């Protein structure tokens, strides 16, 4: 919607709103209905505009808020725009307004929670979300609160909240992912591995999940499965260096496959932007081991352990 048209519409709506008090109830209802429909349309338009012209979007939100103060969406959306712009103060103000106007917990409260948390006020963030959840507990809001608790080191509380969210939304991958990380951090690698598997099954098969899964498997000394996961990770983005290193270690140390170890170390070194003298040294070692292995195969084996 163009700005000019928006202004005309706002003027019309203002006129309508002014006339409303002079008519009977049935017409009032009809007018209110039409007003609500037009506000919805405005919201949608503002959202589209916000990407390229956030200022105009903010103007729209202000007008909407003036037209119908009960609509929390305007404040909420304005808050998000301010957040994106980095204007924390205004973002907080708008989001708080929306929160006061009873926006759902997974809307204004969640946004506020993130705002506070990113400002280092995790405790305040937790309070806001807990307060919002008292009006209704939704899975996204529970996940966010659990996240905050997890960040605050309250892993048991966080785990409980994740479980509660899981009961409401059993196939939400974020629940399994976050729980997986919680278990990983607390050394419960079996549980973390299981959760990452559930994350993948729920559809979140991104690099972070696969990497986390691979790490859990390494901790469990399940190197074959870990290698498979690392290969998956590598396939997702062959340009990323980290998987090569871990694959190299598995090949070298746990499989005795020096050729593949060398290949992966070399891959790591090639993909990596930084210098890694340790890995360079490992590469030389595996080359030597590979040479030894070849000569062993060719002309007798001097016994294991010869260096």
């Amino acid at each position, binding site marked *: 919607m163009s700005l000019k048209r928006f202004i005309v519409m706002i003027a019309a709506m203002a006129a309508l709103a002014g006339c409303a008090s002079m008519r009977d109830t049935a017409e009032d209802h009809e007018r209110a209905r039409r007003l609500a429909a037009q506000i919805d349309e405005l919201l949608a338009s503002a959202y589209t505009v916000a990407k390229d012209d956030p200022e105009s979007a903010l103007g729209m939100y202000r007008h909407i808020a003036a037209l119908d103060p009960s609509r929390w969406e305007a404040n909420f959306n304005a808050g998000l725009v301010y957040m994106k712009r980095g204007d924390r103060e205004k973002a907080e103000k708008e989001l708080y307004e929306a929160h006061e106007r009873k926006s759902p917990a997974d809307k204004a409260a*969640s946004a506020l929670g993130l705002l506070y948390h990113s400002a280092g006020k995790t405790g305040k963030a937790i309070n806001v979300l807990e307060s919002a959840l008292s009006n209704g507990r939704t899975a996204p809001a529970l996940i966010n609160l659990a996240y905050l608790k997890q960040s605050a080191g309250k892993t048991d509380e966080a785990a409980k909240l994740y479980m509660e969210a899981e009961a409401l939304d059993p196939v939400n991958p974020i629940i399994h992912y976050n729980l997986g990380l919680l278990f990983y951090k607390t050394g419960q690698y079996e549980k973390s591995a299981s959760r990452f598997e559930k994350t993948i099954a729920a559809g979140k098969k991104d690099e972070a999940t696969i990497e986390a899964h691979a790490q859990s498997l390494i901790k469990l000394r399940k190197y074959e499965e870990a290698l498979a996961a690392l290969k998956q990770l590598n396939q997702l983005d062959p340009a990323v260096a980290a998987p090569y290193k871990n694959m190299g270690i598995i090949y070298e140390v746990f499989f*005795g496959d020096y050729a593949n170890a060398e290949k992966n170390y070399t891959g790591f070194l090639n993909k990596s932007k930084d210098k890694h003298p340790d890995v360079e040294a490992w590469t030389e070692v595996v080359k030597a081991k590979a040479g030894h292995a070849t000569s062993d195969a060719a002309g007798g084996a001097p016994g294991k352990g010869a260096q």
Partner: protein
Amino acid sequence: MAAEAKPFAKTTGKAAGPAPPAIIADPMNSDPRVAEWNEYMSIAKSQGDFSSSTLSRFYGNTTTFGSGQSQGDFSLKTLLRLTDAYLDAKDAYFRTAMEEHERQLELFRKGALKKEPLQPVHDYSHLINGFQYLLAAHPHLKGADALHYLIGYALYESAQQGEAAAWFENVVKKYPRSQFALEASFRLGEIYFETGQMGEAAESYKRIIVAGPGLYHEKALYKLGWVYYKTENLEKSVDAFTKMLDMERSAAAAWKGGSGLAPEAISGAVMSLAHFKDADTAVEFIRALGPRDYSPRLLALLGEAFADAARYEHASKAYKTLVDMFPDYEELPLIYKLMASLSARAGNIDAALKTSAEMLAMFNTTAPWYKKTYPKGAEKIDAVVIEASAWAFKQYHKNGREKSDMAALKTAIDGYTLFLASYPSVPSVGEMRLLLAEAYFDSKMYAEAAVEYEKAAALGKDDKKGEMFYSAMLAVEIVFYGPGKDKQASIETCDRILKTYPIELAQSGKLEKAIYKTAEMYGADKQFDKARDRLSPLLKDKKNIAAYQKSAELYLAEGNLTAAAALYVSLVENSKLSEYKEVLTKLRFRIAEDSLNRGALAEAIERFHEAHKTAPGSKTGELSLARAAQIAIRLKKPRDIEASVKRIVEAYPGTEWRFTLLAEAGRSFEAVDAASAGRFYELASNAAPKPSEAAKLLFAAGVFYESASLNNGNGSDEAEAAYKRYLLLDNIPTDKALEAAYRLGSLQLKMGKKSDGMKTLKKLAVADDRSTTGRQYPARAKLILLRDAHNDYLKIALTQPFEETFERKNALLDKLLKDYAEIAEANVPELLPEVFYYMGQSFENFKDAILLSERPSELAKDELEEYNFLLEEKAYTYDEQAVKAYENSLYAGRDQRIYTESLQKSLERLAFLKPAIYKRGFGEAELAPLYIMPEPASKAKETRVLPDES
């Protein structure tokens, strides 16, 4: 006999002349007519002169004679008039004599008379003699033809036919133009016919016929017909008869008894026709006559004659010809009936049926034929058509039903329908409507059947109405359960009948059934409230088991198991029948399952127990208790589970559920509560039906007890006891026995029962088992047994005197290495990393011991440096050995892809000892949990935002 020639009669007055001669003696002389005639004859004969002058001279100028109508002058004419009266008197006398004769005969028959009375005979002798005299005296008398005729007549009446014939011939020959000639010819014909002289009879009759129409013309034709019949001139016979009939004014008049001879002529013609060489000829003869009034009657009687002679085909031909030639014949329906009867008699029932059926179509009251022929109606025709068509359609109906012949049934239906339309008021209309309903029913046209049953019921007798209404409901019921979509219409029909005619239904004993039917239909249409409402009158009787059962079934169909169960409770109480108890039990079981499926577990348990209590001892009762126990298993409540198992065992001793439930309980606790799993497996082993199963479960119990003890310290005693019991069992697999022994020993050590543990393990260590799965345990036992020695070895420091302690520690090292080598030789792959690790640790420890050994106190600085150098050289060897051992550990694990903790430890030591070769560090990405950043309010879907994007 019509005596046209009247006799003379005397006047009442007497003549004044000389007295006439004595009157001839005649028993009838008292009759004045007889007396007069006798007197006149006497005079005529005595005078010898028949002229009137003579007679008047006799009577003295009297010019007339006789009296009354007989009166006349003295002439033949008068004589004939007197003779006429004379003959009347004679006839009267004869009749009286005959009557008296009959009376006498009756008396004789009764025995009142001894002698049989003689039959009176006509006595015309006086007349015959008198007239013969006169003729002889006056041969040329004018009017002599009359006298000849009368003589002939008197002789004929006197049974003197031969003589009579002669006198008649006289009349015919001598007086051909006489007024008596034709009569005389007729009488001659009769005499010749009676005496078998057919040729003369024929001539006589022909004479009359040739003379043209007259009094005797039809009779002559009639008699001629018979003459021809007797002489087998059949065509001439028929011709004569038909000519006679043609002479009649109308055949209908003849049928109604006009002249009296026409019916006989028709019969005669028919008899002749029936004797034609074949029916076709006869029929064609009639056809050739052309349409005559009497032709239909001829054909009809001909057909009848043929039929009586069992010549059915010929009869049929005659009838068909009649139908063809005279479609408007007013008695055509009767002919059809005869044709149908003929077919039936010939055994051709199908033809009989078809003909009878056609009668209704052709001759019903609305048919064109009927309207034209009987515009005011005809009860007789109606009755014939009704009877024949009813018979036919009932037969079609019967055949259709018995042979499932739809065509026949359709014919019956069409017939009944036309019948009802044509004869709406006849007494049989009720019966026919019912038959129509049944025909529809037999044809599977149930909707139509229902309508007709209702109509029939309205017409039916009171005690039958209910049955018909019920039949209507049955038909509607079939429609309801059929493929049609309009179920509601069917239900409403049944409901209407039920509500409108309850009394009639009750009178027929069908009311209750009707209620059930209606209720069932409502139930099938899922209108359960209405179904129950219809049943409600029956439920007032608490003893009406069937009603309660039906009501319960409705609740079941509705899914209201609780209400159904309540009704079955009543059924059980009122009927005392075990089958209801069984149903109630199963119902309560279902109710409990329903609770279970809804997740109301506590409620489900309660209801399963209720189901069991309903029929304790039953299979369902047993299953109910089992289900309740399974819920307890699901809830993971060990005490409740044990209580449930106990309950079912008490109620059903020997039940297989005991074992099943305990094993199931064990499985359920495996992942959550190892101690409980162990307990239930132990209990299950006690209940196991087979020793092998018992052994497996006991072993499993031990494993889970052991696992529990590792987690929270509880279960060690139970595990130990279980393993011990297991090891005492017979026929346990060797590998499992070794494993159990190993587990027992390890456990005992962990429990602090070192002596028991060592004893167990020592015994295990010397066991010899080459199986793949079993052989590891002796090796493991040995490994554990070496632990103390290993730890003791590690603690030994090298002190002065160095050589002494060195030798001692070295001896221990050798012993350890030997023992470890032995274990390694057992070739248990999963143990090798650990064995080599310990070997490595032993070497490394020796190296450290050397390097950390006590130095001699008396050494100088440079000596000490030299001493240290030598020590390092010595230590280096052990370092090398340690590396090898650790590497062996790594290789062993690598080869088997078994990455145990020991291997990890070996790797850590290698990383320390040979960092360049072995020190490796996995990269760990720093992964952070995710926060769900809400989307702006206009969009539905949420997105994720990583913290650094906020």
